[in-house]
Every structure is written in C-alpha cells, then in structure tokens.
C-alpha cells in the first residue's frame, strides 16, 4: 500500500528584499517545500532561532531594503553614501557571511551572476556549504540543489 502519511515538507528560508522568490518558490515548489521569507539579517537570525530549516536561499541584491537594515562590513575605510547601492548589490554575500560568523551552517544557495569564476570559488570556499545559482538556471534545477523531502 502506498504510504499516504502526510510527511512534513522541508522548510527553506528565503532571504530577499522583496517577495518574488518566496512567492514563486511557494507557487511552483510549494508541494515539496515550505518556504519562509526573511528580508534582513535580523529577521533571518530570529527565524533561524525559532524554527529549523533545511536550507537557505539568498538573493544577492537587496536594493529595496532600507539602508539602515543593510549589513555593512565596512567594506572599505572610505565607505560613504556613494557606496550604498554597491552595499545593497552585494548584501546577500554579507548576510551569509554574517550568518556563518554566527554559526549557521545550513546549506545555502546564492542566486547571483558573478561572471567571475575566481570570485565564485573564493566565496564558496569561505562560506561553505554554498552553491551559486545563476539566473539562467531553472527552478527544477534549483530544487535539485535543495535537500530532498526526506531530508531531516
């Protein structure tokens, strides 16, 4: 007989500045995963503390997030207002780095087109377990990178 028992779906935490990822993932992958959205580092930490997740999916660009909520690692000594767009543009990396520093070891998928293999290698090595997902990749491929439904 088939196993009709409803098993809990793996929960995936999606960090983005809007809701496009979450909404899309839920609509298209919602039968297999449960997606939860976080829009800043603080909210991410809170959700991770409150519940368990199977993986993280991070957007790279957080342009719509208020400047005050952006992580700033003092990328350079002369950082100023002129750096704000650049700070938002790479926020996904900063956020993951902060999580790793905080001890979060969940597998992470970073949706980004770096066009720079050296940079990818550096970041993957530093922020492991991390996979870079380019924009050309379909959702089915992205889902394949996530832990399976049987994953606890």
């Amino acid at each position, binding site marked *: 007989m088939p196993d009709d028992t409803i098993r809990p779906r793996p929960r995936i935490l999606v960090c983005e500045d809007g809701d*496009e*990822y979450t909404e*899309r993932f839920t*609509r*298209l*992958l919602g039968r297999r995963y449960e997606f939860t959205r976080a829009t800043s580092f603080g909210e991410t930490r809170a959700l991770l503390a409150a519940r368990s997740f199977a993986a993280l999916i991070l957007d790279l*660009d957080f342009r719509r997030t208020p400047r005050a909520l952006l992580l700033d*690692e*003092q*990328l*350079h*000594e*002369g*950082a*100023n*207002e*002129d*750096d704000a767009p*650049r700070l938002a543009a*790479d926020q996904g*990396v*900063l956020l993951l*780095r902060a999580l790793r520093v905080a001890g979060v070891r969940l597998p992470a998928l970073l*949706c980004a*087109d*770096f*066009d*720079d293999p*050296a*940079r990818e290698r*550096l*970041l993957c090595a*530093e922020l492991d377990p991390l996979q870079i997902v*380019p*924009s*050309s*990749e*379909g*959702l*089915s*491929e*992205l889902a394949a990178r996530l832990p399976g439904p049987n994953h606890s």
Partner: protein
Amino acid sequence: MIRASRAGVLALLVALPLQAAPTLQQRGLKALRQGHAAEAVELLRQAAEERPRDAAIATDLGFALARAGHLDQADDQLRHAITLDPRRFYAYANLAALRSGRPLDPRARDELAALLEQGLEIQRKAPGSSESKKLAQAGLLLALADVERAAGNLTQARARLAQARRFVSSPAQRQLLSNLTGAIDAQAARTELRDGESWPEPAVPDADRRALGDAEKLLESDPSSAAREGERLERKLPGWREPLWLRARALLSLGRLDDAAGELNTLLRLDPSHARAWRLLGETLAEHGGQFEAERADEALRQALALEPAWTELKLLRGRTLLRRGQAREAVAVLDALDKELRARGDVRGGAMQSEVQSLLFAARSEESSGHTQLPRLAEPSAASRDLLTQAQELLARGEDEGAFDHLHRALQDSPTLLEAAALLCVRTGVAPDETVRAIWNDGAALVRLVELVRSTAIEQALHTSPLDPAPEAAPAPDGGTPLDESSLARVVRPWIDRAADLGDSSALLTRARFSASEGKPELALRDLTAAVALGGNARLPEARSLRATLGATGESTLLLQARGLLAQSRTAEAIDLLGRACTGPGASADPERLLTLGRAHELMGDPSGAIDCHRAAIALAPNDPRALERLARAAGSAPLTLLPPLSAELERAASLGVMAAQLPRARLMVAAGRADDAIATLAEFLARTDASEPGHATARALQARLLRERDAQLSAARLRLLALAFLVCASAAALLLIRFRGLTVTRALLREPSLFPHVAKAVAAIRHDALKHRASALSMLDSAPREDVQHALTLPRPASQLVADAYLAVREAARQLGLGLKPLAREPVFGALSTDLQAAEEQLARPPGPRDARIHRAASRMKAHADALGALLQLGPRTRLDATQVSKWLLALEGEARALNQPWTSPALELLRLDLDFPIAQGALESVFANLVRNAQAAAGAHPEPRVRIRIDEERDAAGRRLLVLSVADSSPQLVSIEQISARESGRGLGLVRDGVRAWQGFLRVRPESAPLHKSVEACFP
C-alpha cells in the same frame, strides 16, 4: 507578206514619173532601176553634195542606201530628207518601209508612228493637186497600217487600211493595200488561234525534263545559260511549253524585252490558257512598252485576269495602264471594281494598295470628266438639201434621172450627211458619194444607217421594177456609174460595214459576222459575233446565238471560248449571261468547266459569294479535281472572311492534295480562330512553295508580316511583364534583405562605439534579474507544476518577453543617441532570440497543453544559451591598459599644459603595482578621469609648501569578493575633501568630471586618508 508590202511601197516610189532633174540624180535613179545600188548611192551622194537642200535627192539617196544594205545610213538620210521638206511623203513612206523590215523596239515604233501621223497631217493641210495629195495620204496611211499591224494592233491597222482605201488610186497602192489586208487577216486568224484550244505537247523524255529542271535552277544566277538551255530544248522538242516559259523569263532577266515578248507570244499561241505567260507579257508590255504596246499590254492583262481573277495586283496594273493610255472611263471601271473588292475583303492587305487605288481613281475620274469628249454629232441636213432630195425623188419618179442626179449631188454638196440622198444616188448610180462617206467615216452608227438605207432603197427600187416590164438596158449614169445589183451592193457597202464594225458598232459586227459566215470564214464570224454580244448586250444575244448555231460551232467548248473572250474584254455580265447564270438549282450546268468559268466571271465581277458557290458546285461534280479545288481556294483567298468558315472541309481537302492556294484561306481562318502561330507556319509554307506570281502571294506576305509583328509585340509585352515581375521580385528581395540586415547587432555596435557598453551592461543585468531569474526559470517546472502557475510566473505582472523588449529599447535609444542604428528586436541575435523564445513560451502557455508544448521545453532548454550570450556581451566592454608608458605620456601632456598656463607642477610619484591592468572603461573616459584627478591633486598640493603627489594603480577585492581596479591619486594638501563634497560638485569640471565619468562606467569614487607627507587620496574604483 510584210516583205511584199514593203516591196510594194518601194515599187510605187520607183515607178513614180521622174521630173526634170540634174544629170547625176537621173543617172542615180537609172542605176537603181537597173539594180546597181552601190553605183546609185555614189551618183546620188554626188548629187546631194551639189544640192544639199534638195529633199528629193536626199530621199532618193536614202532609198538607194537602203537598197545597198546600209540601213542605218538610209534611216539617217531619210530623216534628213523629212527635215528638208516635211511635206514630201515619199521620205516618210520610205522610212516606214525601211523600218518595218527591221526589228523595232516599242519606242522606235512610237516614234515612227508619230512621224507618219505628222506627215499625214502636213499632207492634209498642204496645197497641191487632189491627186498628188491622195497619193501621199494613201501612202502614209498604208505605212501607218503596216506599223500598227507590226505592233499587233490589228483593229487600228484595219482602220488605217479603211482610211487608205478611200485614197488609193494607183495600181501599186492597190496591190499594197491588198497585201496588207491579207497580212492583217492572216495575223488576226493566228490571233484567233490563241483563243482556241491548246496545242498538244510532245512527249518529253525524262532526261530533258531533268535538263529543264537544272536550267530552272540557273534562272536567277545565270539567266544566259538558262536561256540557252531553254532554246536548245525548245528546238529539240517543238511545242513543249516549259522551255519557252523558261526562256521567256531568262530573256526578261537579261533585259531582252522584245525577245522575251516573242517567246511569250509563241508560248501563248501554243497554250492560250497559260495565265502566267499572259501576266508576264502584260506586265512586260505595260512596264516597258510604248503607247503602241499599251493595247497589247491591256489585252494580255485582260487575258491573264480572265484566267486568274485572284490576281488583285494585276487589276491595279491594268487600271494604271488604261489610265496611261488615256482610257479614263475604262480605268475608272477597273479601279472601281478593284476598290470594291478591296473594301469587301477588308482584312488582309494593308492600306497601301487601297490608297493607290484611290489616288488612281481620283486621277482617272478627273481625266474622264475633263478629257472625255463625245464624238461630234453629225451636222443636221439643211432644209434646202431635203427639198432638193424631194425634188430628186420626184424627178426620178418621172424618169428624169439626169435632173434627179444633179439635184442629189447638189443636196449632198450642201449636206453630205443627208444619208437618204446618198443611198439613193448610190443605188441608182452604183457609186457611193465620196463626201458623204468621208463625213460619216468615224460614225459607226451612221455608216450602218447608210448601209441600211442603201439596202432598203435597193429593195424599193427593185419593187418598183415590174417583172413584166423588163428593165431597160442599164443606161449609164451621168457620171459613168450603173445601178447596183445585189452583189455590187454588197461590194460597195462592205467597207462601210468593216469600218463600222472596227468602230465597235454591234450591228455592223453582226452583219460582218453574217458576211464572214457566208464567205466560209467561221472563225472570223465567231469573233465578230462575240464582239457583237459583248457590245450589244442582251438585245443581240438571241440573234448572235442563232447565227452561232448556224456556224456549226463546237458546242460547249466554243461557248466557253466565247465566254473567255468576253471576260477578256471585261464584258463579265455578258459572259455570265452566255454561260447561263445559275451555278446551283434546276437550271445549273452539270459541266464543272463551265461552272468554274462562271465562278471566274463572278470573281471578276467582285462577287466572291457567287464565285464560291460556282466553284463549290464544280467541286461537287468533280470532288478530286485539283483545278476546281485550287479555283475555290484562290477565290477564298481574297474573299471576305465571313464567307470562309463553311469552306473549311474543302480547303482542308485541297491542302491535303497539295493545293498550295488553300493555305492562304486556311491561314486566315486560323487567324480568326486565334491560332496565330499555326497561321504563321501555314503562310510560311505557302510563301516558300509558291512564287510571287501566285495569287494572294503579296496578301500572304502582308498577313505573315502583320502576324509576326503582332507576335513580336506580344512577346515584347510578355518580356516586359516578366522583367517587371523580376524587378518586383528583386526589389522585394532587396527590401527584405535591407530590412533583415538593416541596423547593427549589439555586438557590432559595441565594437564600433565602446561608450554604448554601460547601457548594454545595465540592460543585461536587468534582463538577468527580472526576466531570467524571476520568470523564465519557471519554465523548467512545466511538467511538475500547474500550468497556470508557470504561466503566472512567466507573464505577471509583465510578460518576460516584454521586459526583454523594454531593456533592448533602452539600449537602442542609447545607441541612437550615439549615432548608431540597432536592428529591430526581432532580428537582433542576442536580445531578439531571447525575446522570441520567451514570447513563444508565453503564447503556448496561454493554450491548452498539447504536443506544441515542445516549444516551451525548447525555449527553456535555450535559456542557458541566452544567458551565456548576454554574458558574452559583457566581455565586449572596452579595456584600457594603464601601464607606465601610458601614464607617463599622459603626465607629460599634463605637465606641459600646466607649464603653459604657469600653474604649479609637482612631479608625481608613480606606483604601478601591476603592469597588466586593463581598466573596464574607454580610453578617453579613463584619460579624462586620470587627468582631472591629477590636476586636482596638483592644484591642491601646489597651494602648499613641499607639495607631493602620488599616483598608484592597483587591483583588489572587496568584502563581497568583487575584483576592483583602482586608480588612486594622493596629494599633500591638508585640505580634506569628502565624497559628499565631490557629489555636490558641478558637472563639467574638475572632480565633477571625475565623478560623472566613474559613475558612467559603473565605477565609484572613494576618499581615503594617507600618511604624511601625503594627506588624502581620491580613488576611482572600477569593478
């Protein structure tokens, strides 16, 4: 006979009594009479030298020269004699006699006739005794008659003889008259033969036929040889026509017109139905002959047309000839009929012939109206003369003959045309009153009237003589005459009848025919009967038929001969009457030959419908007679088109039997049926297998030319249409190519204008984020997620394809501002291909699932390729290598600039940490950033003691791992500057330019503090 007549004239001259003359002339003439011509010439030449103005000596010398055989000198001498004294008829007569013995060309004959006419006129007006004038006039008229005879104008010759008969008095002239009469009768009899049956041809061996065929081939290239061969064959096989025909044409080619005409005459004697020979003879005489030949030319043309009415162009020639002869009325008749025929036909020939016919008709009508003169009516006898006649009759009744004759003579002196008086005198005295005969000599009707009066008077006189009262011994008339008995009467009136008949009086012709019949001359009788029928119309027909029946003539063939004669005289209507009119129905003839002749007559009348009926009737009787089929075909060739369709079967049969004439009407039918190509081929065959003398040849040539012109025009039009179509196709292809290849791809635009790169990079980023990452990635879920969810992801809030289009539109606009034209989106290989795939997926998602979902899978599978293509565009951004050489070069320029402006300059320290750094920015932009950073540092440092400037070029990675190329310029000025201050600077100068340039190339500025002696650095960073 000719020799006899010439000898007669000469004898006459020699016999003339000699007047007192110088010794030399007398001696010369004596020597001549003794037959010593050479001696006579010598003596007369000496005499002429003594008296060079003596016309008599000049004439005698000419005669002697002729006798001596010096014909050319004789001719010259006699003409000289005429010049010396144009009144002397001997010179004329001698000249005529001389020339009549030599072959004369038409012009020479015309000249001689004119000369004799001139002499005759001079004699009429010249003073002198009646006898000598009579002698001269008779001599000249006899000479003229001989010339007319030689030219073949027998009617005119007879008329001249009749005139001469009135003046002939000497025995020599009577003999000459008799000789000439015999010669003319004999020639007329020979002429009659031409109208008879053809003479049989000898059997021709095959070798000779082949020889003739070979000679025919030489006709154009070597007519001399052809003529020789023709002559050889002609001699070998007398009576064979073909060599004659060949030789005639060959001689014509050689310009030997008289010889050619002679050959044709011989041929026509043998074969009077040789239509082409008649035609050639007529054309030759009409074209090259003089006035004297005009009559023969017309006769030949008439004969030709009677045999072949379809020779339209010959009718035109005949009209022309008649007009030239001054026979305007006849010309009008011929041309008018031709005009009607051409109009009825209407379709085949061009307007050239018709316009010539019109102009000739105009000329003929003008001449007819202006030049036609009626014969002067005979003067009415006076009342006095009638009184004298009455008195004479009374005197005769009383037996006072002498007084009666005196009254009659007086009456006739007063009115020579008082014919009753003349007849009475003639019957009673046996002598015709000369003044009356002269007065009515040119009036045929009056002559006939005189004959009738003489005859009735004679009957009346006979009735008054009672048989019981025997006539007294015929008392001699006062002038020596005696009353006429019947035979004498016939002898007296015969010249008048001849004259009237020659003048064309039908009664006289009929009467003469009776005479000829009674004299046992049926041929002459038949000829006059024919002429009588022709001239007398229906009224004379029963009488003529009745008399013809008494001639023992040969039935049908004679009838046909008569009919042909009538046709040859253009008496078509009479010919039709003679033949019985009907071709179909109860009264129709059962003789095909007769029906064909009737058909020809209808053709000549310009009645093609009637002609066709007759020819078809003939064919019905003789279905396989090629002559009948040919006749029908020729009639159809010139008939109106509307008459042709019912003839199709006959024409096809004719063509199958090799009747070439059928090809022309067949071709016309083909044209009417729209089968122009078939018609052209048919006409080509017709023209190739017939010569120009074939009826309709010219028509066929004109029709063929017209059809070829029309076909060429159609082909040209088709070619033009094809060209136009090809042009349109080419133009469309060119337009398509232009549209397809119009504008630049983004790749080419980047290579041509690097400053477009920032716009492209921005568009690529937007597409990656909005279209690919957030929308197109859903396509891979088609098989594992609800279709509407995939569709929702791809198209909402805006379709992914539209996002691509918007991004590209921005790039295109930026390119346009840079002076570049990009391709339309659909044909741009990177953006366009992506947009197309997305659009295809969007459209397919809007449809129910099905096999065409493969389009979605294909689009999804190509997304990575699209993304790679977009990424490749980013690799096309400009790269400017900033090494020591480049930096030094720029610094030198800046130093020179500062020094030129007397501005402080501090040699900067240079730190190039790597030598192969390529900045992702155009060289000009980088130079601008560099120069302004340096100027700013120089200015700031220069304002303080111990100025320092340092330039450093380096590479680093930021906290996010991003690679940065850094151009850093530090100075020793303690005055600080912040990013905010730089952002606030106005554009277009100093650090404002630096700021704008860096941002434009996706870079950013940063300000850093530096350790002493430097204070700060401003850095341009490019990811």
